[in-house]
């Protein structure tokens, strides 16, 4: 079926005009509306199929995998990375990348733990403010000064780490969240057996999905990622859209870091190293194209779950170090990217 389509596309000789390219500027898969082809299905739901398969195999082979306790453990463990992956999805849809979220996450944790002595509001407001500013700085440097996203965010990754060391007395001070903080029960307790962080993730992803699909802002993100020049000519505020995406990424990483610190009860300084790579892997595994212009938030959620389930299985099997997860994560990333390249070439018919 796809083969027929690709020959049709190449026969017309219009790389942008073949069937399934209804979305115009929005990347090789059109607007992501879906036309039921096999390639589209794999792109959209591949991660979900793999997740289902992994869950099924794990349920059959590992005792106690499907217990409520273990599933809750996976869900809560996936909650904070998922919040980061949501922001990363927006950034990647604009065709950029944000490597700073890992150390921003760590910085937010330390700031939240330090500020928690002044109450719950301070514990949230300070990290969110600082991390939002770092995100905005990324956005301004990328959108206004037109610097390459990876180098800017790699530099602010170092800068946020330095700031974190400055706050924590060169990493030697671990601030502890005081007992009785009003925020603590709201993070640690459960509602109907489901942890509050998990519920928060569901709400955030629902809001993010609606914003991406149903608002002008979301359409602007796709337009900027699909073809920046075309978007600018159509009157899309390119710089503002990019700055909003990076600011949001910083804010969400900050939120995840702050909540993580409250959840743990202290601002652990070494937390968050390499978490940006997990977030990027999760987003790409979920079907969002690193080239920009195509993607959806539900895929990122599935991607995060998939990586966390694999992590859980690796931990469950004795004798495998947790570093093995990184190997799996890296191989997954490259496999998915290769598959995407292959699929998009078939779709474009060359």
């Amino acid at each position: 079926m796809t083969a027929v389509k690709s020959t049709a596309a190449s026969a017309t000789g219009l790389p942008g005009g073949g069937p399934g390219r209804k979305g115009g500027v929005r990347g090789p898969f059109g607007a992501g509306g879906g036309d039921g082809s096999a390639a589209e299905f794999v792109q959209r739901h591949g991660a979900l199929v793999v997740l289902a398969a992994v869950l099924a195999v794990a349920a059959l082979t590992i005792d106690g995998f499907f217990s409520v306790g273990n599933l809750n453990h996976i869900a809560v463990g996936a909650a904070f990375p998922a919040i980061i992956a949501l922001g990363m999805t927006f950034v990647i849809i604009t065709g950029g990348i944000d490597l700073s979220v890992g150390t921003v996450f760590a910085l937010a944790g330390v700031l939240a733990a330090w500020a928690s002595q002044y109450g719950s509001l301070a514990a949230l407001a300070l990290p969110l403010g600082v991390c939002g500013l770092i995100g905005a700085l990324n956005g301004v440097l990328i959108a206004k000064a037109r610097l390459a996203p990876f180098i800017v965010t790699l530099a602010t990754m170092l800068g946020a780490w330095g700031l974190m060391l400055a706050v924590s007395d060169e990493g030697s001070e671990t601030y502890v969240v005081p007992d009785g903080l009003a925020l603590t029960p709201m993070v640690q307790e459960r509602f109907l057996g489901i942890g509050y962080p998990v519920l928060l993730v569901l709400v955030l992803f629902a809001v993010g999905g609606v914003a991406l699909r149903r608002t002008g802002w979301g359409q602007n993100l796709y337009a900027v990622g699909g073809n920046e020049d075309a978007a600018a000519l159509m009157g899309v505020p390119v710089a503002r859209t990019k700055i909003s995406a990076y600011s949001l990424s910083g804010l969400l990483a900050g939120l995840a870091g702050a909540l993580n610190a409250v959840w743990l009860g202290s601002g652990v300084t070494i937390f968050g190293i390499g978490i940006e790579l997990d977030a990027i892997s999760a987003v790409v595994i979920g079907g969002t194209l690193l080239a920009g212009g195509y993607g959806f938030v539900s895929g990122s959620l599935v991607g995060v779950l998939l990586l966390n389930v694999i992590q859980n299985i690796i931990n469950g099997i004795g004798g495998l170090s947790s570093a093995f997860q990184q190997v799996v994560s890296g191989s997954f990333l490259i496999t998915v990217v290769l598959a995407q390249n292959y699929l998009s070439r078939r779709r474009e018919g060359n």
Partner: protein
Amino acid sequence: MTAIGMPAVRVDRTRAVPWLQEYGVYIGVAALLVFNLVFTPHFLSLENFRTQAVQVTPVLILSLGMALVIATGGIDLSVGSVMALSAAMISLYLGYGPVVAVLVALVAGAAAGAVNGALVAFAGVQAIVATLAMMIGGRGLSLVLLPQLDGIRNPGIRELGAGEALGVPYLVWISAVLVAVVVFVVRRTVFGRRIVAIGGNRRAGELSGLPVRRTLLVVYVLCGLLAAVAGVLATARLQASDPNSIGRLIELSAITAVVVGGTPLQGGRVRIAGTVAGAVLMQLLVSTLIKHDLPPSWTQIAQTAVIIAAVYVARERGRK
């Protein structure tokens, strides 16, 4: 934003910016040297210059490979992880003798580079994505192979890390030789011209019959190999394999050294002398800050500012 009404400023900029891109790095090095001569006690000693020269070695060697990759219009984020991989290999294969261990480490680095190169050149994956995957997976693999720091007590390796010939440490000799080789390759060989041609316009390179894919593959293999050399030398100096912390964030220093040295991130141009000066600049900057009792936190924040400023100045070249 475009300053139409300010022709005077524009003329200034068109002259100043290329000049700054060309010679800014040397001015930076000179300024830091003068500052240190005046304000840093005991700066002007042979011992200090030795220390600086030894400390700059890993970043310098990495930035040589990085300069070649960036000249083709690519990027290699995995160099730090490849360093870790080679460090793990040394520890694992030391039982067969130091020569075998070093060779295995170098082969591992070249293999990692070959994977990057194959993904970029043949599978058409963006360089940043392919090397990002290697950055994640490579670090993970080295930690799987060698979970924690492992001290190395081997006379051969120790001699490599601490020994010297004619009063100059081996580490400095090795980096000097590598710089000379890379300068020769870039200036005097067909391969060197191909690298720049591909970075300038890949399509034109293909149409004029250059072996674009093969050249790209070799460039990434060289970058991986040089990263492995840096990993071996860092391990030898440390007298320990530390796959967890070796080379963390070092890719940033290497990229900065290349960009500060006047090689644009868009590719199509490479300046090895500038890259060497760029690596020296980063080393001097860090050591100056440390010598004046600035804590690591402020050192890192200052580095961030320098990197962003350098990339900002270098960016103008792409516009012509």
